[in-house]
């Protein structure tokens, strides 16, 4: 941290003497404190209450949390989220690793075009994505069912969003579409950075391409894997999945994630306390999972 001290410039303290830095930091600090940190702390406080948002607050203690663990709807949303973690995060990371190592260090023609295409889903609103896919999956005039009909697989035509056995996976598949290209680009740029001589040395030692992948590529891509895991994990639990599910199934047939259940409890049923307890669990889940990923990424 000595580098920090090096960059301390006394002559900069000219607006209000030693208070100058606070003047510069004030707008960001103030708006962050009032509109992010204060409500964030309040979420924890609310989770201990029974409150409809208008009437009197009743202090419950941890009752909301106890009730949550006995609420089948909570467990349903929890297991929906587990499916989304697998399909938004784990599958795209694994598939992205395989695809990008197959491409490897090839000098590519048209790399800019592919990068442009693969990144495109990242700039589209989640609800817009959801609406396109609700047509693709639609039972009557949908794209998938029509293709199945054309190639003679009529028996597989189904209401994709209309059964518990298909709906969560159909929604989860959108995550693969959304993230696979993103993962491939990040991993490719990581692979390009690996020193060629490491591979040369391994080849001389007689390592085959699978061994090279496991012992060189994977460890060297640690940072990139952490980036993709964390970004996609947060998506599968937080705002992105909220938008995708709202605009596709609306949460029915086992597709409702924790964030949507909490929203419905708070803004439709006015159970602010219980909803906040769900949010707290969501926060804990995200923090624990991202910490685990970052620890694994740092170690090994």
């Amino acid at each position: 941290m000595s580098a920090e001290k090096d960059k301390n410039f006394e002559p900069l303290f000219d607006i209000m003497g030693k208070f100058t830095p606070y003047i510069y930091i004030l707008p960001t600090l103030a708006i962050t404190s009032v509109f992010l940190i204060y409500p964030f702390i309040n979420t924890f406080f609310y989770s201990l209450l029974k409150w409809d948002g208008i009437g009197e607050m009743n202090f419950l203690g941890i009752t909301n949390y106890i009730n949550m663990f006995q609420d089948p709807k909570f467990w349903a949303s929890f297991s929906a989220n587990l499916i989304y973690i697998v399909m938004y995060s784990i599958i795209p990371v694994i598939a992205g690793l395989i695809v990008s190592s197959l491409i490897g260090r090839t000098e590519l023609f048209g790399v800019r075009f592919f990068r442009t295409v693969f990144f495109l889903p990242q700039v589209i609103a989640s609800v817009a994505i959801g609406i396109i896919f609700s047509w693709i999956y639609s039972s009557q005039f949908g794209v998938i069912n029509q293709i199945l009909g054309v190639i003679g697989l009529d028996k597989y035509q189904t209401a994709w969003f209309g059964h518990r056995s298909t709906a969560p996976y159909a929604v989860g598949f959108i995550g693969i579409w959304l993230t696979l290209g993103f993962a491939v680009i990040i991993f490719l740029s990581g692979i390009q950075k690996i020193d060629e001589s490491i591979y040369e040395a391994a080849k001389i030692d007689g390592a085959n391409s699978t061994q090279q992948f496991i012992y060189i590529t994977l460890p060297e891509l640690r940072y990139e894997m952490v980036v993709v895991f964390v970004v996609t994990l947060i998506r599968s639990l937080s705002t992105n999945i909220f938008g995708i599910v709202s605009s596709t199934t609306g949460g029915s047939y086992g597709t409702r994630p924790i964030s949507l259940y909490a929203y419905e409890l708070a803004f439709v049923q006015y159970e602010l306390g219980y909803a906040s307890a769900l949010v707290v669990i969501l926060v804990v889940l995200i923090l624990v999972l991202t910490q685990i990923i970052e620890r694994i990424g740092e170690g090994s």
Partner: protein
Amino acid sequence: MISKKQVFKNLLTYSILIVLSIFVLIPFVLMFLGSFREHVNIIINGALAFPESWSIDNFKEVLIEYNFRYYFINTIIVTVPTVILANIFAIMSAYALAFMEFPFKRTIKLFTTVVGIMIATPFIMIPLYQLMARLNLIDSYLAPILPQVAMSACFATMVLRSFFKGLPKELLEASLVDGATSWQVLWKILVPIAKPAIITSAALTTVWTWNAYLLPLILLQDPAKVTLPVGLMFFKGRYTTNIPLMLTGTTITSVPMIIFYLIFQRHLVKGLSQGVLD
């Protein structure tokens, strides 16, 4: 001489890339083509067919009769001030965090970067609604703007701080010797140099604000005030049966960001792939 193995490798590489590109692009092509079709033609000719004519009637109908022109303007009203404010705030806070020492700096830095970025909308939605209601801001454009500014400013502070810290200290020393004030040093010397980093954070915050759904959903309840993603969901709720009109609304929502992405691609890719986790 190109070896057989290399030819095979290239063939494999390009097959993978092309298949993956088609996989990514299909939904966009379907959306775009679908927004020129008529519902009855989807029923007759099926989902996979070209538009019967390239008429822009759907766009006229969605923009005028279904209020998308207001949603569009509302989205701009929310996005532009958010991006400008967030980045001005961030330029200032990154400056202090990069070049000045002061008490409580570590804590302040934590709150205005990492913690702010970590707090996602669902984490605060319930108390935030209560707060905005108490401030009498529900249905005011300020309601989605203020928290969005906070989230974006924290992200931008992190990006700009690490950029500032990478600058040679001689740069600041030289200008300070010339007798410039700290305010002048920031805006006349640092900001022009930091232009690439500022464009990166501004481009990312633009896309986030434009696409935000949950924040305007809870804070703007007047249908005349909602932004495109929320308007699109209103529309879906009411007219689910007309597929081309829904796709037209989706096109109107996403095409501005697609164009924006094509213009600022380099910055957006850079920001999304490294800035998020500095």
